[in-house]
């Protein structure tokens, strides 16, 4: 019979805390957030008032004075790395917030209202899905004034499609459950049903999706920065990579300027992916083992099957 507590955010979180892989991811992400929050305490220098750089300070290898070396402008890489974490995480959080908000509303309304609304919204989503994201983002950012907020907006506005599809299908399945009909029979309105019955059951999935969208947003920001379309006044990890790349870090032997921000990005993206995997396992316990395995082990779902280009079961047209 039903032994486990179904659905629910609190229950999901409780089960998640027993998921080793997810907890490793969470620890990694919390560490990154802590570094960003406590940057002023940890950083050896103040980025607003760095020691006056001279020609002798450029691309210094790691030393006691500069644990991660210095960059092309003679600045301390560790300091920039710590403050860069703030920008990169902020871009990730805000962009994914926009994407998930739009995708969530679209998916909820399409799934809940159904009929023509669903048809129109999902056709629109289909169109957005086939438009190549990165080139479009490149064109929009290149042709508008590049600022961090434009980048956040573009990443957010182009990143909602996967969320919309996911939330729509979950809403559809929740909507068809009997307790929703029951609430309707009692006389409950749409808004009440969404708030009290649909949302709580869609929420865990939304959280999984958010975590994965964060990692995609951070990757996308670094790609845009690498292509020279970032905001140079907001020194994110992507921006550090761009400076290192365009100002010859590798050929100058200053690999450390490239390594630190790169590892930062991999770290956070990996952390988010692991958290996403952990949550996914908690929500889909069916995947705990299979008929040919003797061991019960954790199963990973590929991040993008759910998020980026979910294979659509062809709908009956």
């Amino acid at each position, binding site marked *: 019979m039903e032994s486990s507590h179904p659905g629910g955010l609190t229950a999901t979180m409780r089960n998640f805390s027993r998921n080793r892989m997810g907890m490793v991811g969470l620890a990694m992400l919390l560490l990154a957030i802590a570094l960003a929050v406590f940057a002023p305490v940890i950083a050896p220098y103040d980025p607003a008032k760095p020691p006056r*750089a001279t*020609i002798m300070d*450029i691309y210094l290898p790691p030393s006691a004075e500069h644990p991660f070396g210095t960059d092309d*402008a003679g600045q301390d890489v560790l300091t920039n790395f710590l403050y860069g974490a703030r920008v990169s995480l902020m871009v990730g959080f805000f962009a994914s917030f926009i994407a998930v908000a739009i995708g969530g509303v679209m998916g909820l309304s399409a799934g809940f209202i159904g009929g023509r609304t669903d048809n129109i919204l999902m056709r629109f989503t289909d169109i957005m899905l086939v438009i190549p994201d990165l080139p479009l983002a490149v064109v929009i950012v290149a*042709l508008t004034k590049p600022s961090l907020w434009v980048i956040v907006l573009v990443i957010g506005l182009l990143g909602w499609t996967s969320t919309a599809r996911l939330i729509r299908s979950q809403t559809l399945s929740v909507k068809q459950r009997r307790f929703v009909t029951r609430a309707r029979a009692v006389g409950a309105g749409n808004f009440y049903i969404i708030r009290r019955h649909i949302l709580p059951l869609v929420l865990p999935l939304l959280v999984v999706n958010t975590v994965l969208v964060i990692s995609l947003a951070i990757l996308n920001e670094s790609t845009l920065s690498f292509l020279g379309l970032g905001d140079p006044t907001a020194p994110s990890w992507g921006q550090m990579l761009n*400076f290192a790349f365009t*100002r*010859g870090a590798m*050929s*100058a032997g200053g690999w450390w300027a490239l390594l630190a921000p790169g590892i930062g990005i991999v770290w956070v993206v990996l952390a988010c992916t692991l958290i996403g995997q952990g949550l996914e396992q908690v929500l889909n316990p069916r995947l705990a083992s299979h008929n040919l395995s003797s061991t019960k082990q954790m199963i990973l779902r590929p991040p993008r099957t759910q998020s980026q280009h979910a294979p659509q079961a062809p709908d009956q047209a």
Partner: protein
Amino acid sequence: MESQLFSLYILPEHLWGEKTAQAAIDFTNDTMVGSGPFKLAEYRQNQFVRLDTNQDYYGSVPKVDGAILQTYGNQDALVQALKTGEVDMITEMPNTAVAALRNDANIQLVVGAPLDPGVTDIIFNLVPPDQCPPDGKCTGHPALKDLTVRKALAHATDKQQLIDIVLLGLGTPGLTLIPDGLGVYYNNTLQDYAFDIATANKLLDDAGYKDVNGDGVRETPDGKAPLSFRLNWAGDMSSGPRIAELLSKTWGEIGIKVEMQGLDPDTLTSVCCPAFDYDIIIWGWGSDPDPAFLLSVMTTDEIPTGTSESGYSNPEYDELFAQQAVETDKEKRKELIWEMQAIALRDLPYIIPYYGQNVQAFRKDRFQGWITDSSKIALEDPSSLSLIEPVK
């Protein structure tokens, strides 16, 4: 005359003679016709150009069989290609790589004035209200029209640090729009504004620019507007953000704040001129061998055309520009041009942080005979390519 002829090319009559104006516009000009030491053998756009030696060349026939000019997607890869011997010579590279290449026994660095000297400039919006062009917005900060403020900014600009950090020392401090690469026309007698924060602060204090509200930013003498300027640069300049960053730090020390934003060149053109919808821009010019064009940039006549970026207007300067344009005596023309430079440095429509240098490098173990001691550095020039020969 020289300046006008510079951009005219000699065209082969058998190809162009019969063409109507429209046919000439539509002509794609794929077949190269010339009389130089090399012939075009193969051209793949954005990949490479392969040149074969012209055995019928009237001068001394090059000693090599040909040359390949290859394109790389990024400068870092270019340096690596030279290091691994994939290429024998590179025409550009990030200055940051200089130190690493200097230590490489097989590589010779060549540094000097470029063939077409470039100027990096910091432009102030000075357009006078009565000169505002019909389609202009003219939103420049009023304080920048005060020479005292510009002088203070000049004193607070550490050109040597800019050269050190941005160019890794491979540049010379700038004075006016006329770069030192123009030889005799460059006025080398002028005295620049020394980097001195104290002087800059004193200038502002004396002129009444005080920090009234104690937020670290000075206000105009009437106390209304803070000295906070928009600072833009062309997004395609890789040095732009670094220059802006360094300027914001030293200018911050004299109580002047900047809001930095890199702009796409098209967008920058649309705010720059003749709209004059900006405060300060970091940009650059490439120079003709003759200074006439760069001098014209600061004349009143060019304000509505969009050529004048600063909106600088000075009848005295305009008069001198008109005189030098018709002066046929070279020495007298030089005097006029030197005087114009003195005026430009005095009135400061621009702060010129530096004149860049060309940095090129070649492998010593492949070919020898490169021209490295010319006043202009251009290893890719046929003059060099026709002299080199393989190292025995």
